């Protein structure tokens, strides 16, 4: 008993010849189908090159366009010849010219000899498969497809839409249940001959002729009618990408293919010399008797599809530039934005760095320069602190900063003095952002400054206006960041609780509570300062209510609440 090979060939005839000889060397009879569109000269040369092999036949040629009936017709013709001419063939293996046997052919023969009744054909109902391309699953079997998907995509789509509108449905003959699966199968003589000599075959053929991609469903459906035992998997390792075209194997896949223990792989790049040399010459590898295990290859190709369809979140580069709403993550990692904290606390930045172990920057969007941590002028990724470069494309600047420092959480200060107009929306909409705001704290540096009061008043009015606009952004329904807002008066009532919450959420370390408290600026006279602003006709309201005189609630410096001390 032996295994017969059907080869469907349309290009790379030198490789096809090589593989045919390899099969033949182990005593497998071969029936070859060559695409009708192959020029006669090439075809004749190919036939001639194999003329010295006794058990090679060539069958009637059909035109094989992707997704059409030609491929099924070709397989039928070849299978008929195989069954008629080689009586001792028990299993028929369907392969293509770009298939490559990975294990010694004898191992395949033995494997099949141990399973004489088993048909290896991937066959699943349409409801259960995820790999339908173009959104057509069951409709493959109920609509008509007279237009080529590749050449006439527009007409193809329009005609499908029209049939849906008219609720047109083809009847599926004899109540068969459509199944789909890999085109590459291995069937027993019993099953295959039953399919080919079925008296109903003209009906099935007529029906499947107008099904879309019948080569993935004809044998897969009909085998269910006759098979004694179906093993629903393909013995050919063949992976498809998200557009439904097969992944190709190259020289650098050699080790992966070796370890896959699959019998046959598809599709091999015709110039992958190392693969052809390795797998077609060394038949001396030890008999392993193992089941195929393509897990690693599966993972690599699944990752490739994922990269192509979803990409790396937070990365903007030459071949990934998502439109708004399709970013799949605006940035690649979580980060924290503090507004007003550095104004209210004198040593906020070093304190935060110590308390959380994160990287703490100053005002990244300051008008003069990007204040990177530790006064650096260049940061990870060779990002420059130049304000002109940053403001030229603030979004790129910021996405790069977060991307370049992945693995280390970033914190930075922001405030109404900064150039935030072109970046505030991006940050507010980013679920990776944790934004904490003490409103009105920008008044503290003004309060401490040594400027003329007229200038202070003007500046206060400007900053208040910017911040109130900014708060509108943060409070808009589109804001997706984790946002907390306190007025300054509210915050200094009990500063440690909100701080503890923020720091717990950053969640780097220090679960036992804060051992050290940042030093708050001296606010003696701040209430009077605000009153002076009011007296000048400006209305500072973002700070909340500050009494003119000092109340008993004035914060005590350096005296942490006892329960916060470790």
């Amino acid at each position, binding site marked *: 008993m032996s295994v017969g090979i059907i080869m469907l060939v349309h290009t790379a005839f030198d490789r096809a010849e090589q593989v045919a000889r390899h099969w033949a060397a182990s005593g497998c009879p071969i029936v070859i189908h060559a695409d009708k569109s192959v020029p006669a000269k090439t075809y004749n040369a190919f036939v001639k090159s194999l003329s010295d092999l006794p058990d090679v036949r060539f069958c009637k040629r059909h035109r094989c366009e992707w997704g059409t009936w030609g491929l099924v017709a070709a397989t039928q013709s070849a299978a008929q010849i195989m069954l008629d001419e080689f009586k001792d063939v028990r299993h028929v293996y369907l392969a293509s010219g770009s298939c490559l046997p990975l294990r010694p052919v004898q191992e395949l023969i033995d494997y099949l000899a141990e399973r004489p009744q088993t048909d290896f054909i991937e066959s699943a109902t349409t409801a259960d498969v995820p790999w339908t391309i173009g959104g057509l699953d069951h409709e493959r079997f109920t609509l008509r497809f007279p237009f080529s998907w590749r050449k006439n995509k527009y007409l193809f789509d329009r005609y499908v839409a029209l049939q849906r509108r008219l609720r047109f449905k083809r009847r599926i003959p004899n109540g068969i249940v459509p199944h789909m699966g890999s085109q590459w199968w291995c069937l027993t003589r019993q099953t295959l001959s039953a399919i080919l000599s079925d008296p109903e075959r003209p009906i099935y053929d007529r029906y499947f002729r107008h099904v879309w991609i019948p080569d993935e469903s004809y044998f897969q459906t009909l085998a269910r009618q006759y098979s004694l035992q179906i093993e629903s998997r393909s013995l050919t390792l063949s992976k498809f990408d998200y557009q439904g075209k097969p992944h190709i194997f190259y020289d650098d896949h050699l080790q992966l293919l070796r370890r896959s223990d699959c019998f046959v792989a598809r599709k091999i790049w015709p110039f992958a010399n190392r693969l052809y040399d390795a797998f077609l010459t060394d038949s001396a590898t030890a008999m392993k008797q193992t089941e195929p295990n393509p897990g690693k290859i599966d993972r690599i190709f699944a990752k490739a599809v994922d990269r192509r369809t979803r990409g790396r979140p937070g990365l903007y580069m030459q071949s*990934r530039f998502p439109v708004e709403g399709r970013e799949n993550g605006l940035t690649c990692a979580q980060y924290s934005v503090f507004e007003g904290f550095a104004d209210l606390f004198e040593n906020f930045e070093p304190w935060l760095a110590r308390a959380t172990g994160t990287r703490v920057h100053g005002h990244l969007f300051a008008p003069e320069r990007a204040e990177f941590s530790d006064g650096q002028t260049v940061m990870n990724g060779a990002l420059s602190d130049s304000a002109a470069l940053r403001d030229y494309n603030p979004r790129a600047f910021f996405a790069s900063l977060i991307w370049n420092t992945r693995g280390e959480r970033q914190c930075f200060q922001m405030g109404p003095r900064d150039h935030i107009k072109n970046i505030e929306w991006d940050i507010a909409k980013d679920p990776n952002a944790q934004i904490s705001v003490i409103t009105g704290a920008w008044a503290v540096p003004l309060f401490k400054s040594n400027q003329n009061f007229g200038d202070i008043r003007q500046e206060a009015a400007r900053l208040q206006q910017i911040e109130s606009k900014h708060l509108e952004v943060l409070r808009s329904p589109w804001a997706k960041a984790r946002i907390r807002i306190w007025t300054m008066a509210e915050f200094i009532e009990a500063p440690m609780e909100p701080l503890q919450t923020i720091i717990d959420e950053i969640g780097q370390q220090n679960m036992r509570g804060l051992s050290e408290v940042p030093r708050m600026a001296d606010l003696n006279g701040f209430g009077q300062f605000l009153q002076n602003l009011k007296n000048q006709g400006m209305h500072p309201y973002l700070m909340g209510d500050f009494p003119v005189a000092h109340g008993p609630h004035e914060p005590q410096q350096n005296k942490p609440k006892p329960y916060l001390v470790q």
Partner: protein
Amino acid sequence: MNPLQSYRMRLKRKRAKLRAWRSHYSLKQVADRTDRIGPGDILLFSTFRDEYVRLPYFLKYYRDLGVSHFLMVDNDSDDGGREYLADQPDVSIWTTKASYKRARFGVDWLNWLQGKYGHGHWTLVVDPDEFFVYPFCDTRPIRALTDWLDVSQLRSFGAMLLDMYPKGRIDAVPYRPGQNPIEITSWFDPGNYMIAKNNDFGNLWIQGGPRARVFFRDTPKKAPALNKIPLVKWDRRYAYVSSTHMLLPRGLNQTYDTLGGEKASGVLLHAKFLDTFAAKAEEELARNQHYAASIEYKAYYDNLRDNPELWCKWSEKYINWRQLEILGLMSKGNWA
């Protein structure tokens, strides 16, 4: 895009083809071996001027990748580079004394040659200081890439320009002919690039890198463009519009994904900053034949006189394409 816009693009393309046709009168053939071009060959097109020192390694690099034929335009070199190339068995070469600037920085010449010899071939357009790196370039020849692009029904492949520079002064290490320039200029900026979309042509406009960081930190708008589409399955109707930054028809510029995925892309390692650079900058400044009144060279020259160091603490040393892919400068896309 409305019909009027697309008609305007069509006119632009026709104009580029017309310019290409007109410019071919200024090209004089030096060595013609185009009869050796076979069907399916991968062709390289390039212009150069006084680059003899770079040519031996340039040829070797691209021959190793599997380029079958080089079609070169010499812009009035007098350093022997033209004669050297004319002796190479896989090079066809033309020479011209015409203005580089008036030929839109060489684009017209190459558009003409590509239209004439490149139809139906995969064509690679690079300068002698640009080295094409694509996914798996250490194990797969360029033919593997173009075959895959064919199967994927893609007609163009993007490769961003990545400026390479040495550690220390640019003129510290002399470059010898035949040497791999990346041995000297082995550093690059890993993550300071800015991207915007060009809505007229549909391509991305990328700026940044060491040139923006050092030379254009106060005038970023003038920083040179780094986006390039050097590898195209050429059709005689196609035309490069501005260097290899963008093409017409517009569909060819769509080398990036807009729905969150990553398309496959490569990188052009740009070994411009060798010791030969300072002399070149001086000469180019005098000739005034480069983009925007040689503003680039002016900026370089002013800066380079004072502090010719591009290297910084966060520069990254080049290892291989996988490093670039991890950094997010290029992508394998769905090629595995």
